[in-house]
């Protein structure tokens, strides 16, 4: 096999609740498949070696780095991206609303990855103390906020807090 003759593989996956049939090159990263083939550009490409977390998506419900998975590995699995969170353009997901309220983003590049890291265990994470929340954020780099407003946004969602 030469560079001119890449192997292409048919895959069947479920992305944001929709079944997707596609043919992908074996070396295509899940990030590039989502962005370029499916035009789901909410998943951002940062470092491409698993450090920054900007490409975090849910793989069978668990947050993973989409830059460290080949698209072909999504065959038979479910993927959720940040586009799955809001019901519509008018109605944000409560976590997105909390980020907006608390000014938890500036440039917004890291935000989709952070949202997808938090979304599956939101109630559990929001009830943690600040140190533990920062620990849960450690896999996502943000160069704007200094994290404080992100922590504030998460804490504002604590179901056990009395709202004060």
């Amino acid at each position, binding site marked *: *096999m*030469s*560079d001119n003759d*890449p*192997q292409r*593989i048919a895959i069947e996956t479920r992305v944001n609740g929709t079944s997707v049939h596609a043919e992908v*090159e*074996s*070396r295509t*990263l899940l990030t*590039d498949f989502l962005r370029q083939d499916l035009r789901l550009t909410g998943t951002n490409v940062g470092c*491409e*070696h*698993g450090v920054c*977390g900007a490409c*975090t998506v849910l*793989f069978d419900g*668990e*947050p*993973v*780095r989409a*830059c*460290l*998975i*080949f698209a*072909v*590995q999504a*065959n038979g699995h479910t993927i959720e991206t940040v586009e799955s969170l809001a019901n519509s353009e008018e109605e944000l997901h409560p976590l997105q609303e909390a980020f907006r309220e608390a000014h938890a983003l500036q440039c917004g590049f890291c935000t989709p990855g952070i949202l997808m*890291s938090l979304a599956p265990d939101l109630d559990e994470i929001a009830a943690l103390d600040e140190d533990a929340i920062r*620990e*849960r954020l*450690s*896999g996502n780099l943000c160069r704007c906020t200094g994290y404080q407003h992100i922590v504030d946004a998460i804490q504002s969602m604590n179901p056990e807090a009395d709202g004060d």
Partner: protein
Amino acid sequence: MKPPVFEYHAPGSTDEALALLGEHAWEAKILAGGQSLVPAMNFRLASPAILIDINGVDELSGIETAADGSLRIGAMTRQNVVESSDQVRAAAPLLHKAMPWIAHPQIRARGTLGGSIAHADPAAELPAVMLALGAEFHARGPSGERAIPADEFFFGLLMTALAPDEMLTAISIPAQAPRSGTAFVEFARRHGDYALAGVAVTLTLGSDGTCESAALGLLSVSEAPMLAVQAASALVGTAVELSDAEGAAELAAGEIDPTGDLHASADYRRHLVRVLVRRAVVEARAGIEDRG
């Protein structure tokens, strides 16, 4: 950066994976969790012609507790499964304690126990922990299965006792002995980063209250994950007082062969080992009293 072209195979069984590996041993890589291999491919530091993806081989995942209390963990068991396993917490508290130190939750959701061991990164937590646990690795190849003790497995930088046509299939970990204590400590600039140095300790006391056996696995301070053999033997026979811990720490600092890099000089790593070994030994000793 994007990975180079490769041919992809997704076998459904260990036998099928081994057949592929036998056919392509020198040009193929096994793709487990991919949390080290894929970054290396994205950077083009690795460019295997063939990838054998064993994520679909279900028989390689799972945690079993044997009658004697020991664990047998499938090589493809995800790190976050090991982390939250009650069986692991009960039989191998050291492994349980070390898991949260491995990178970040998103990495542990994909990364596997066997993948990290077979990759044998000297800066990784699991190889050093396996050394301190006295684990045994089960490998399968064309001539059948063999068991390799952890202290005969790690050779040099990313080098192991696995032959190119062999695959790590499972890891056996003895149940922690009664009157034992363990500790895992590491120092990293940011939690989740590769540690500048780290120590995994197992201590077992005899009936007279002195140390019967000790094992100290070190990470990030040598070309390969290593046991601090002299430091461990110096602890045997002592009551593991603070002065004994300090003596072991001094010996460990002399046994290592750290290199300096952007993040830490060799001298600083040596200093860290001295501090971390002392702390880990004291913590492991204190843990024995906690357990009664």
